[in-house]
């Protein structure tokens, strides 16, 4: 009984497999042309000019962008300015972006253009980045560096040399509140840490979620902790990160203590360590069930891009960014943690470096850049540029708020040293879980910091 059925089954499966392999081969054969552009050793591009005769395909790998809106934006920009360059856009989830990059680059492959962040990634990937200077001079001009803001250039450099082109500024050091929800319970946007604590108590009392942080994600823990430390003693924080000051300094231990109290005092939500920022916590925030979350400046982009967000606003919910609360009671909020949205880099292994550079130019200071500014994907890194979209009242006022804060920067957002970063991440989580004390955590971080090669 089994025999006959089995025979049919096998025949069917083999048939499908054979059919699929024929179709599959056909379907995938067509798309090998772009990848071969990178992996084949083509020696003619050395003399290519800005407008090559035959169409050139280049690939770009990044995370985060809204894919559907990028394709026409890219096509539009490239079509008018650089008609012979076609861009294939690889969108990769952030969690896997660097993994893919590493694996690709280690084997001499990889996209022609790719994005990396400042900080540790820039240092690690620097050797795969084509020195941008010569390319930029050719495509933009000898004065290309003057076009970008100083802060942008500073973030772009590794050992003094720029690795790529800066692409937008962004960062954290703020909180976003759901104003409607706050009004419902008669709570003012918090200005101090005590305000935040009281806010959380009020919401908990009413059976609601309080200030919520996705503590499973180490990056948000770093953002919040750095903001706390910045308010207590900013220069000590950055010196400690650079190894010039010990982590067991009382100011830093105080910062770790404040961090831990967020959890022990019930300011942050229960079960924070089991939730990540995107999508767990953010999801609930957009369901209008959380009053405050510590996401950064990038959230302003939701007004122009995120359908659910827009629907919430249309339904009468209003949101606004506020500065990170005052921790040490001196009446001043900590400075922002600013970093680059990304550094756009040309792959050293690329066989179409000039064309790649043209695309990078549009991406960081040309048509694509302006489009991204207009939808508030990031904030300006090119001098004398600004977002030029149509913004409603709430959006305009929030944008003005953020723009006014841009001058008050505490320092970089990204931690440059991976091992130190892991030690800090682990200790921040351990403190949140109640498994360590600020003193012990500081000592552990200091051990890592002392061992860190800088």
């Amino acid at each position, binding site marked *: 009984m089994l025999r006959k059925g089995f025979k049919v089954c096998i025949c069917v499966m083999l048939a499908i497999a054979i059919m699929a392999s024929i179709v599959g081969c056909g379907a995938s054969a067509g798309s090998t042309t772009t990848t071969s552009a990178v992996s084949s050793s083509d020696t003619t591009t050395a003399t290519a000019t800005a407008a090559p005769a035959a169409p050139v395909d280049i690939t770009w790998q990044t995370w985060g962008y809204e894919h559907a809106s990028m394709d026409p934006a890219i096509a539009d920009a490239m079509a008018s300015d650089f008609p012979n360059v076609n861009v294939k856009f690889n969108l990769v989830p952030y969690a896997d972006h660097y993994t893919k990059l590493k694996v690709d680059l280690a084997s001499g492959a990889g996209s022609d253009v790719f994005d990396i962040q400042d900080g*540790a990634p820039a240092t690690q990937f620097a050797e795969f980045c084509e020195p941008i200077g010569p390319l930029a001079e050719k495509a933009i001009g000898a004065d290309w560096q003057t076009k970008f803001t100083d802060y942008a250039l500073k973030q772009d450099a590794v050992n003094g040399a720029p690795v790529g082109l800066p692409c937008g500024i962004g960062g954290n050091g703020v909180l976003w509140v759901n104003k409607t929800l706050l009004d419902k319970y008669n709570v003012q946007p918090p200005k101090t840490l005590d305000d935040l604590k009281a806010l959380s108590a009020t919401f908990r009392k009413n059976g609601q979620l309080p200030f919520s942080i996705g503590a499973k994600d180490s990056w948000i823990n770093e953002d919040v902790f750095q903001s706390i430390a910045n308010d207590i003693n900013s220069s000590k924080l950055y010196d400690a990160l650079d190894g010039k000051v010990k982590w067991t300094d009382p100011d830093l231990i105080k910062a770790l203590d404040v961090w831990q109290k967020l959890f022990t005092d019930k300011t942050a939500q229960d079960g924070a360590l*089991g939730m990540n920022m995107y999508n*767990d916590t953010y999801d609930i925030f957009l369901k209008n069930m959380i009053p405050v979350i510590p996401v950064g400046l990038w959230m302003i982009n939701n007004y122009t891009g995120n359908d659910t967000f827009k629907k919430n606003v249309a339904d009468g919910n209003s949101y606004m960014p506020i500065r990170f609360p005052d921790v040490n009671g001196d009446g001043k909020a900590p400075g922002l943690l600013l970093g680059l949205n990304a550094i756009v880099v040309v792959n050293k292994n690329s066989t179409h470096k000039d064309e790649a550079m043209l695309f990078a130019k549009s991406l960081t200071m040309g048509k694509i850049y302006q489009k991204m500014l207009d939808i508030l994907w990031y904030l300006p890194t090119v001098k004398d540029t600004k977002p030029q979209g149509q913004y409603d009242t709430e959006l305009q006022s929030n944008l003005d708020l953020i723009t006014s804060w841009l001058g008050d920067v505490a320092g970089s957002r990204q931690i440059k040293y991976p091992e130190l970063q892991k030690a800090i991440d682990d200790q921040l989580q351990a403190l949140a879980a109640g498994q360590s004390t600020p003193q012990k955590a500081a000592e552990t971080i200091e051990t890592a910091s002392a061992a860190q090669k800088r």
Partner: protein
Amino acid sequence: MTKSKAAYLYIAPMCLFFLIFTAYPVVFTIQTSFYKWNGMSANKSFIGLQNYTNVFHDGIFYIILKNFVIFGLLTIFIQMVFGLILAVMLKSKLPFSGFYKTVIFMPVVLTPTIIGYIFSRVLEYNLGTLNVFLRAVHLDFLALGWLSDTKVAIFTLIAVNIWQWTGYSMMMYMAGLSTIPEEMFEAAKIDGASNFRIFIHVLWPMLKSTHFTLSILGVIGVLKTFDIPYILTNGGPVNSTQFFSTYIYQKAFSLYDAGSASTLAVILLILAIICTIVQNHLYSRANEV
């Protein structure tokens, strides 16, 4: 058996695949474990056994070993017990048994990643389905931080693993049970043995080969487990659910430390070989009885 030179031709294709896709990577990994390397650079520096000494000084390594033992023992054993009980219960004619079998076995064919995503929503502390349900029936004290509490998380992973694979054990035991001739049960019953004694003295021993197969496959599965821990906890919170696979992945891809990652991989391989040898030994010892 016929002696045959042509035999080498028969095994050639298989060995070719093995050499290219298994042997070479393993050799590469062993080699890398003696270097400090960030995984992509052309620069590597030879540091001998330093990666190994670093590993033994790494607190997380001991967490991984502990998790391996706890996770391994609990998932394999509990799945086997549940599977056996379910299989025994299905021996007698039960209405809808076909339906039960279909449902219970189904998680085995589901993609582990998808299972991970689903459970990460169900198990969330504040608004996840499980805790909401428990609070609704006034069992608040049971609404634990399934993924956020460092003491609970590993057991949550064990539970999800059991959820997925118990059906497999059940089916294997059903197969094993069907090889035990009915007469043995009859004989035991006639001799006046209670059901419980039959279970212990007749059933359990006769299923030895099933026990062995399940435990070997179980250990291999535990060594390789990646998808579910990666999605549900990513080794956290605070490294409490780190496994070899998640830590190796982190070392290689978040920490730019391919050398250490390779070291851990080598240790994992050695551990796997030891486990297999031990299990083989136990099995042949048991069979000598």
